[in-house]
């Protein structure tokens, strides 16, 4: 029952939708590569992406059941928020909870350099 709902993406956890999307990409790549098993999947997730690490790990295990990626390890590289401060003319890491404010001069920077990432980076398959 739960599996059926999750297969349709019907669940309160948006990480399930993200995990299913991820699996979609992995499946296509596995077909192209002619592999029947995937050992690990690498993703890059930004601090401002709205994805909770633990929820995504849980969702991955559920979403990949009975798939080419069943039992695979999801390796999440978390990308901290980095903005380009035009006032300081340099890249800065805002303090947690301070939005995009430059920690040096306090200016709000309109340019996010890192933090929005949501990338399927690579997969590991048996040699």
């Amino acid at each position, binding site marked *: 029952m739960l599996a059926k*709902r999750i297969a*349709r*993406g*019907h*669940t*309160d*956890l*948006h990480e399930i*939708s*993200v995990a299913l*999307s*991820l699996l*979609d*990409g*992995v499946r296509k*790549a596995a077909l192209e*590569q002619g592999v029947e098993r995937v*050992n690990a999947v*690498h*993703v*890059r997730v930004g601090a*401002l*992406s*709205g*994805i909770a690490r633990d929820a995504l790990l849980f969702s991955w295990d559920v979403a990949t059941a009975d798939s080419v990626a069943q039992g695979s390890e999801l*390796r999440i*590289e978390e*990308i901290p928020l980095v903005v380009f401060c035009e006032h300081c003319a340099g890249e800065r890491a805002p303090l947690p*909870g*301070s*939005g*995009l*404010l430059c920690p040096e001069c306090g200016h*709000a*920077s*309109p340019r*996010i350099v890192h933090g929005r990432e*949501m*990338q*399927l*980076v*690579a*997969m*590991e*398959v*048996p*040699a």
Partner: protein
Amino acid sequence: MQNGHLDQLDATDARTVVLERAVLATNDALAAVNRQWFADRRIVALNLVSSPGSGKTTLLERTIRDLGADLPMVVIEGDQATENDSARIRAAGARALQVNTGTGCHLEAGIIGRALDVLAPQADSLVIIENVGNLVCPALFDLGERAKVAILSVTEGDDKPAKYPYMFAVADLLVINKIDLLPYVDFDVKRCIANARAVRPGLEAIAVSAKTGENMDAWYSWIRRSRVG
């Protein structure tokens, strides 16, 4: 490329296939189809996002009553259950389609594409998408809209943009609703806007009461400008 950890893999019994694609590539592709569909018909689509109870539907009802005669509008209502909201929209005079998401917490581009097939909005009209009441995941899913409008009511707390930066960081307009209740709540409009601009510098903000109609003209002006821009 930030994949330093890939180097740690044992390459002897496994190989690594580099993929480098957006996780939500499928949704993004469908959103691009929607965006082109809108552009071909000079339709402006707005994606309204907020917490439950911010007054989105009331805002829409008044907007339809005030602008509907000159500006054709259709509404796509995303809700986890019930037809209540679309019934209110229809009573206000616009065509509406309710897309119940079950327990899903957001709308995705494919759902919007199917809703457009059913609603068939006319050229030069306005399509308003009322997303599921939620300030996290609707931020992730592009629907093909022209703009994301984040709605916040004064009963919610002026620190909400700081608590939910994901949504406010991608918003194109902040509408602060229920300002008729300001005398009764501890909500500082200026502080709220400052909090939102901390995650979205330069974000345009409009404070209204959809109930009394106060300052709704500013919202209508913004809609008209969005159709030109």
